[in-house]
């Protein structure tokens, strides 16, 4: 198989399959959670659960002051990481062209030089996250192999994308093929590791916020 063939497979049938596994897998995870159900709170409420749920979905995006002051690096790096990933995935011209061809939707993009710089920063940020994970005693204790697998799965597409765009290390077509393959891999694996947090955080915040809103307590 040469580079062209690999590229064609990775962005064609490979991607289709990966996307299918991703969507089906995430739906399965959603079903696994929701099908467990929960009991209605029979205590007399003070407020509206749904309002509380929505409020917590928004409010939990900001850290508590006292915890932020203790761990500013870990928290700021978390923001950087997520914003960087967002820019690299959704605001890069060629990605948007790809989405347009696939889903028929498109939106404005950032200059590629800017996305390139953001990608470099995000790679750095992921590296910082890894260093923290490996050195902080709390993180070391609670981390599992799944955390490191998820890290590699996230790091590879960013790295190969950066290398391909800058024509580094391998011929462009090869690197691009590897880039898309790594995305395929990420999509296939995401529903089966902690990357499920990309949707589950909404549920978690909703459930806690719902109870808090209903009871009229902080969340």
């Amino acid at each position, binding site marked *: 198989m040469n580079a062209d063939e690999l590229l064609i497979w990775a962005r064609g049938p490979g991607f289709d399959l990966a996307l299918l596994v991703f969507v089906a897998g995430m739906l*399965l*995870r959603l079903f*696994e*959670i*929701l*099908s*467990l*159900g*929960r*009991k209605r*709170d*029979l*205590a*007399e409420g*003070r407020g509206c659960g749904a309002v509380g749920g929505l409020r*917590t*979905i928004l409010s*939990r995006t900001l*850290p*508590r002051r*006292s*915890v932020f002051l*203790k*761990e500013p690096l*870990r*928290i700021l790096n*978390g923001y950087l990481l997520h914003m960087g990933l967002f820019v690299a995935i959704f605001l890069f011209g060629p990605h948007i062209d790809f989405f347009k061809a696939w889903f028929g939707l498109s939106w404005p993009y950032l200059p590629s030089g800017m996305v390139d710089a953001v990608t470099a920063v995000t790679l750095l940020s992921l590296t910082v996250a890894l260093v923290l*994970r490996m050195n*902080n*005693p*709390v*993180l*070391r*204790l*609670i*981390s*599992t192999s799944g*955390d490191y697998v998820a890290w590699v799965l996230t790091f590879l597409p960013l790295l190969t994308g950066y290398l391909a765009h800058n024509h580094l290390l391998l011929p462009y077509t090869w690197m691009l093929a590897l880039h898309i393959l790594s995305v395929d891999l990420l999509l296939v694996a995401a529903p*089966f590791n*902690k990357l*499920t*947090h990309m949707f*589950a*955080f909404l*549920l*978690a*915040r*909703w*459930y*806690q*916020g719902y*109870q808090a809103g209903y*009871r*009229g*307590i*902080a*969340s």
Partner: protein
Amino acid sequence: MSAPSVEKGIRFIREQIDAPVASFFSACVHCGLCAEACLFYTQTQDPRYTPIHKVALMRRVWESEFTLWGRIKSALGLTKPITEADFTEWETLVYDGCSLCGRCSLVCPVGNDISGMIRKVREGFAAAGHAPEGLIGATTRAIEIGSPMGVRLPALQAQIRHIQESTGLEISLDRPGVEYMALLSSMEIMNFPEYLEAIARILRQAGKSWTISSKAFEATNSGIQIGASDLARVLVQRIVDAAEELGVKMVISPECGHGYTAIRWDGPNLIGRPYKFKVKHILELLDEFREQGLIQTQGLEEARLSFHDPCQIARKGGVVRQPRALLGLVAANFVEMSDAGAMNWCCGGGGGVSANERADALRLTAFKQKKAQLDALKVDTLVTACANCRITLEEGLEANDMNIPVIGLTEMIAEHLVETDRIEEKSA
């Protein structure tokens, strides 16, 4: 009831897993920030006290039984089964190293109610026979005697007689048709009888009719702390039966944090139906009396004082505004501590920790968090609204040679109460 065993423990953990729990585990990114919220971690720096680590056994049950990937791993024999040794190892984390204060739940960036999960996982530990001796004793006494401290009715009657003789106040037992039924914690009956006198004076002044049930005067619920819902239900049912039999409109939860959680939030869910009466914490009620002009106060406390928010009343109970409004009546020099209100730090004695002698040293270490807050404030007096916080604070302060008296807020309001000459209570 079958004998405790690992299998039973796992089964009880499994039964606790619902959609919220599954969403919490699915959302956890292992960021470790919950540790920074927990006084047992911040004061020991021992990573095992990281809140999410405390529910690791529950995570294992969830993963291996409620996720496709985990089921495949189990089928292939790649899952480590939970053993007696695991229960032994985690027992001290789940009971000694957690006061169910709920602070971690407010800090987790993905919104996990970790504290709620720790409360749930205790069901499994109790069922596996891995609950601390102190809590088992308290629960047994609560079921058999009616009080975790073994306080019997004659002790309460003696207190009532004493108050009646020295103050002329009338406190009736089992009076049907009155508006309120007051609960007490054993700690109040034994160590802080001022509370009973205080509510008697305030309710008389407000012109309210009230009573105490001889069958259900205890507000605490060890069943909830140990994690035995069946026993917790029995204890709640006693109160519900008594209140409904007497036909009261409201049950007053005393200055006891988890007692409030038990009767206000857990109770209806334990007995499977809403109550026919309302439940309020004494501070909620006092603040209503204040708003309605039913009570007035005179004179101000000149001491520099602060308020310790009991976790179950402020963070988990939503009663934050009321104590401030009440202190506004009587305190000239009130100062807030850092993180006051919903983010306040626990005293270290909640969630059954203070009833568990094995945890004494750890509790005093965790108390350093409160000490740091107080050191920064330099107060003369500390006010709170939970008898268990109060005794924990007193012990912690004493152990650290800090000379700060701790006072209950209800009692402080009663001290400043304007008492007009014996308003005759309208007979009900």
